[in-house]
């Protein structure tokens, strides 16, 4: 168990370094000079050349890479071209918003998803099942931006219930988190339903029933406990997905999060910022799946014994 954990950890770090290298190379084969983009209409060739040299962008690629890695280890991820501040500082303040958004979205997705999943499984092929599964398929098929725009239109514009954008008030997080969480809710609901239906067919459920436990008791104490295992690991992976995948939601609702920083970095050819945000998102996903594996092995008695 410990050994495999260390193994996984080393693997994660290797993958992360691979990712850094990949992003680094990809971002630098792009046509277009970031300095020129930064200076816009007033750039004259001499100034652009001088500033390119000042920022070390005319150095060979491998030297730039080692310079980046070594300063990254010291916590310095460079200065954003388009926003003029240190990348770490920008990401720091944006990450708070993304984190809150992801937490709210996950809360919505898990509560709604697990609830609907259980109801669907218990009432298999009856109204609640069809209703909830319909919604979950809708959630999976509906592009996030459509859901976001729908919600903005109805609750922000028509009904004036909730703010259209902004995060000064906590109410500003409600619509974005529903938009973001809808898709995950659909997945959780389907997974819960499948897992629960499978466990309900196991022999020990019949045994418990035969012993005279109430149907709800069987459901909660026996079936649910076992069915939740795969759902739980999926949820961990999902949360890291939510953290890194809020790009569109943040764009539609104008939330200052990591995703929007990334979009901005892309449109402004802001290499340090893009590198920083991409790195953060990948790290979150890698360690999220690592955590999921650990969680699974802790919770699942079979894996625990094997390890």
């Amino acid at each position, binding site marked *: 168990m410990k050994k495999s954990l260390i193994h996984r950890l080393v693997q994660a770090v290797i993958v992360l370094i691979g990712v850094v290298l990949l992003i680094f190379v990809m971002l630098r084969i792009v*046509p*277009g*000079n*970031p300095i*020129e*983009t*930064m*200076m*816009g*209409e*007033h750039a*004259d*060739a001499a*100034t652009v050349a*001088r500033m390119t040299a000042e920022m070390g962008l005319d150095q060979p690629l491998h030297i730039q890479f080692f310079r980046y890695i070594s300063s990254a280890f010291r916590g310095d991820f460079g200065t954003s071209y*388009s*926003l*003029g501040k240190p990348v770490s*500082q*920008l990401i720091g*303040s*944006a990450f708070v918003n993304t984190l809150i958004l992801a937490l709210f979205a996950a809360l919505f997705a898990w509560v709604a998803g697990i609830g609907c999943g259980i109801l669907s499984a218990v*009432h*298999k*092929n*009856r*109204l609640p099942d*069809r*209703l909830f*599964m*319909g919604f979950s*398929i*809708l959630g999976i098929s509906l592009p996030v931006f459509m859901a976001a725009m729908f919600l903005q239109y*109805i609750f*922000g*514009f*028509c*009904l*004036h*219930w*909730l*703010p*259209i*954008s*902004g995060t000064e*008030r906590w*109410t500003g997080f409600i619509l974005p988190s529903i938009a973001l969480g809808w898709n995950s809710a659909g997945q959780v609901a389907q997974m819960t339903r499948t897992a629960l*239906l499978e466990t*309900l*067919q196991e022999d020990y*459920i*019949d045994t418990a029933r035969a012993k005279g436990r109430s149907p709800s008791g069987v459901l909660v104490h026996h079936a649910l406990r076992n069915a939740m295992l795969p759902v739980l690991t999926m949820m961990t992976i999902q949360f890291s997905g939510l953290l890194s995948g809020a790009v569109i939601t943040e*764009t*539609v609702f*104008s939330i*200052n999060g990591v995703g*929007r920083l990334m979009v*901005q970095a892309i*449109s*402004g050819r802001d290499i340090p910022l893009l590198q920083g945000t991409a790195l953060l998102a990948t790290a979150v996903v890698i360690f999220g799946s690592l955590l999921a594996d650990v969680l699974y092995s802790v919770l699942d008695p079979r894996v625990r014994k094997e390890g």
Partner: protein
Amino acid sequence: MSNMEYEQKSGHPVLAFVLALLGIIAAVLLVFLTGVIGGGIALALGVAAVLIGIAARRRGLGIAAIICGTLAVILAVIMTFSTVAVFRKIHDEALKYKDEAPLVAQCLDKPHFGFLGMIINVTKYEGDSQQLVDQFNMIKEKVDKGLKDSSSALPWIATAQAAESEDEVLRVAVLYDISTMDVSKTTDDYLIPMNVFDRLFETRPVNGKSEIVKSLITDYSVSADGLTYDFVLREGIVFSNGSALTASDVQYSFERLLKAARENTDIPLEIKGGEAVMKGEAQSLEGFSIKDDTHFSVTLNAPNAGFPAELSAPAASIVDAETTEKAAAFGTDPADAIGTGPYIVTEWVSNDHYTLVYNDKYWGPKPSVKKLIVRVIADPMTQNLMFQNGELDIINLQYLDSAIVAATYKNKPADRIASTPNVGETFLLMNEENPYLKDVKVRKAIGMAIDVDLIIQSIFSGDAQRENCMIPTGVWAHNDQQEGYTYDPEAAKALLKEAGYAENEVKFELSMDSSADSGTQLVYASISEQLKKVGIQATVASYDHSSWLAKRSSGTMDSFVGRWGMDYNDPANIVFTFFGSEESNRGRSINYPDKSIFARVAAARTIVDDQEREKEYQELDRKLIREDAVWIPMYSTLHMWCLGDRVASFTPHWAGFSDFYIADVVLK
């Protein structure tokens, strides 16, 4: 095994029928009671679809039907809900309008089910029903408006918004965050420099016209040869940190721009010795001499009557030498932005918002706005909604499609709209290295094939004006006698034939910057369509901003819709930028073949006599635009703003900048 029993019960026709009946009754009630016909029908259809779904034998089909049905029901409920909310409000407030709407008030006297009762009474009314309906609609309109204004039906949000719209606070939104507060590093982000720092002169509105006025100085004089300016600083001015403003701060501010050697070096370069400071050969400006704390003089390389006007540009902001010198990252930390202006920056959260508050050490008159909150909202449509919701006090309409502006804002009273022409021009630029575009006849045919007036009327809803010259309207030396290209597709075809080109033979690319606003993107598409009609294949290709810039500066871009906004009121700003040297000409993909023009354009700047200079610029304009058709001048737009209920008046920047002087906003 345990689920077998469920599977067999796959359909409840009886239950479905009962529910369907209930649904339809509910729908009918809705239609009759509230008049929401659409909502009622949608509800009925939705319920029916859900029931078909329940009764269906196949699970998948059932799910599909239930999804559609539920969506319809949700829509219906929402549609009716907002209407019901209005009626409830009418019921609550009808007594307020007792005098204006006595008939409606009568219907309130015998309520049996609250607001539903009122509606029943209204529908059953046995008098002059038309009058009642009119009165009812009158209240409805008022309530509708009230609901929109209070912007929320839920109490907690209403209070939250009230807290934000406290007195003397102005809330605006921008599309992009600023990158710096330092004028040496930007030519765009001027809102903070304009309001936090002062300059020796300002361009200010005086009796409805913009004029150059003295700001930090009380007096100045020019020597007879026009080379030396003597300035007297205003006494007793202090920076927001309390230290006094002296002549050395002015010198430091100019030298700093040169030492940074970035975006803004034009103005201090005119001072004698500027070149040397920029190259690092000298530490201080030779042409800048300080007599005492308030008296100093500046000597220029060449006489320039426009020097005071240039000193009013945001680039010539005066900073506190001591603080700026010590600052680790000047332009990034609000604490370092120490100026003598009316505001100080208290907070800057990147990509989110920044806040300016009144500087109580300010020497000038107290402005109406004591606090400005600038929010970064990347989407013009969201800004539009926020303004309508009362979350913004002024909205910049520049980036909204003119059709939306026309539908939403044009019907507002005239004093709610502030507008100023964008001094500048949008034009179609053509690369003379392209095998077809190098032929002047082809370029002129293109000029005749583009229907600029149609573009102005449709895409900009008439809020733009035709430009016929290189030097835009509103700029000194602009020639309003110069003729433009008139739309004449037949003549264009004839000219192409004369040049020896068959139909559809002329091909080139219209390169579009994909970050352009929707109006410009439409202009590209319509130019391509209009050229198609005369047998020219101009295909639109879109590039992201950086690739577009890279392609353009390589000198290989076929053709593009360019836009130039004037930085200061002198024709050199546009003519010299595009035709000042072979390098800059190629850098904008023009590749003008006659190299002698560059020297001529450069020389035009130094002509001392105004009349002669004006003549030379107009002659250059005629040659380049009318004779050689280097580009097709098209239009300049009107920059419009809409003011919210809390704003009394607003005067935008003279050149149509999106940045403005906060002191030009007066709150009610």
